[in-house]
């Protein structure tokens, strides 16, 4: 019985971790869908968002230095969202519009360059100390579950899962039901045609990078609350990659389901197989899992079947 409960714990924490990965993967997918850009800077965006948010909340930040007061959380989050939108606008102005029509790998490189810029900028502006981010998300294990059922689940992760659910629902509505959402999907399908019917690509990119920036903000809040805001936050992008290949680069549900599979898979592997081979296998296991999956479905979980033509 105790053993089964442990298995359940592993699966649950895998699912929860998976949600955290999905939050990052989601940002990737949005940008890739709308602009074909494999945005390696997504992790750094999350870091940058978290840094900016911290700045509004803390007394050692720029905001306090300039205005002499800090913002309450409910104001700081929208303010950070505004910063992310501004950042999206700058990225579009300074990078994307000059790289239209380039090959994917060139755009990919450009986002790595962007990641460097943001990393350097983040360090210069906010310093590289660890910044504890506390926006009131409860920390630690859920006492309710632990005391009554001896089941260990982190409160933060419950909040993250709920937030992710809300976020995905909101995104789905946005994409399916609104005029701009329709335009976004149109752009994802065919840039040229979208341009020809009067959809401004530049505007769409700003929108989609803003949305991605806001998703990054959510990811940044969750990961920042978990491990403090510091440089390593940007490395979670690496954990999102296997999620992406599993779920497909263009599928929002893929990012979610992929995240869950990777989360559960790597935790089970680490806990049950890791001890046999010396541990620390979860990193590569996630990739091998995704790779094995790809060999059977080269287009990912929800990707479309590729029919090759000549």
């Amino acid at each position: 019985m105790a053993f089964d409960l442990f298995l359940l714990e592993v699966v649950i924490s895998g699912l929860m971790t998976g949600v955290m990965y999905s939050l990052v993967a989601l940002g990737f997918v949005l940008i890739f869908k709308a602009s074909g850009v494999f945005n390696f800077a997504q992790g750094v965006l999350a870091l940058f968002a978290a840094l900016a948010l911290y700045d509004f909340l803390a007394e050692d930040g720029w905001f306090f230095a300039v205005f002499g007061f800090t913002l309450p959380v409910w104001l700081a989050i929208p303010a950070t969202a505004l910063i992310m939108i501004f950042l999206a606008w700058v990225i579009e102005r300074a990078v994307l519009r000059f790289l239209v029509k380039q090959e994917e790998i060139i755009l990919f490189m450009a986002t790595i360059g962007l990641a460097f810029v943001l990393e350097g900028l983040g360090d210069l502006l906010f310093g590289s100390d660890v910044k504890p981010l506390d926006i009131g998300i409860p920390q630690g294990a859920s006492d309710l579950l632990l005391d009554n059922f001896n089941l260990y689940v982190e409160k933060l992760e419950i909040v993250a899962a709920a937030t992710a659910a809300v976020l995905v629902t909101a995104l789905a509505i946005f994409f399916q039901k609104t005029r701009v959402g329709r335009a976004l999907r149109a752009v994802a399908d065919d840039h040229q045609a979208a341009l020809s019917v009067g959809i401004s690509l530049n505007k769409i990119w700003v929108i989609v990078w803003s949305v991605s920036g806001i998703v990054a903000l959510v990811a940044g809040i969750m990961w920042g609350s978990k491990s403090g805001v510091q440089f390593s936050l940007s490395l979670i992008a690496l954990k999102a990659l296997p999620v992406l290949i599993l779920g497909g680069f263009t599928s929002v549900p893929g990012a979610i389901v992929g995240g869950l599979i990777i989360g559960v898979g790597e935790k089970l592997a680490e806990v049950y197989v890791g001890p046999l081979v010396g541990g620390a296998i979860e990193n590569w296991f996630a990739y091998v899992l995704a790779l094995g999956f790809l060999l059977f479905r080269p287009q990912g979980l929800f990707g479309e079947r590729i029919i090759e033509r000549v």
Partner: protein
Amino acid sequence: MFYRENGQFKSSYSSDQAIFPIAQDRAFVIGILLVAFCGVPFFINEYWANAILIPLLVYALAGLGLNILTGYCGQVSLGTGAFMAVGAYASFKLVGFFPEVNYLILIFVSGLVTAAVGVVFGLPSLRIKGFYLAVATLAAQFFLIWLFNKVGWFYDHSPTGMITVRPIDFFGVRVTGPEATPAAKYLFTLTIIATLTLTAKNIVRGRVGRSWMAIRDMDIAAELIGIKPLQAKLSAFAVSSFYIGVAGALYFGVYLGSVEPLEAFDINQSFYVLFIIIIGGLGSILGAFLGAAFIVLLPILMKNLMVGGFGVASGTAGHVEILLLGALIIFFLIVEPHGLARLWQIAKEKLRLWPFPH
């Protein structure tokens, strides 16, 4: 000036197929090689050898290897770091087993070992394409590094898992370790790299190279005209990994001397080499060298300029350096997405016309 090809007639196919059909280019390259082989060794000091020229050459070689796979055969790989590790560990183990055998042969064998590993990890490329493949090669990256970090046999059970190169003599001249002179290390590396560059050029201008490029440009059409994708892709993985493996062996043996797998061969290493070929120019031998020069020299240049020149605090300079490097990468991609090699080519074309516009 007098950069013209007029009057240079080719009377055989073999002279038409020469690497540098234009006499001035030939002279230029021979000049550079002369300086590199006969001039530089007399002036080189430890700083230039250990901090600049050797890393430059080693990274150029790794770039060359990745360029064969990515630039010529169109298969994006992010496993370069791990393949360099295979070369490094293979040479480490081989030197341990056969201390009497010539180092050059052991490095060559390390390359072959890496080629074999590369082929195994290249297998998914038969089904997976593009970024999916790139991310899939990360499986190789993470798995191999884990293996080298975990299995004691690979690092001779040293307590920390680090490996340190033994002092090795090459025909009586010390080429590894601190006692090797900068000139010896440099010449050893340069010789290997010059030779391998020539062979790479030979391969890419022949049948095998054409079949890689065919796969890169349009894999289906290539298959339909009789190129076996399996053979072409795996041979690209093999040759590419061979080069990367040799680069890894030199990186460990001659350049760093001691490495820790997680740090020296981590994913950043893979990205680093990818930068080199994209900045330098995909599908260009020259590009690997230009890219390596850019990526290796630029940060040093910026640091020296900021810290030494303007007295910026070294930490701040570090941040600015990252920021500027990123900005420069973006800038170069915008100015010339096909890399420095293309810029060079355009410059040459302009030079050919100079001073008359047409």
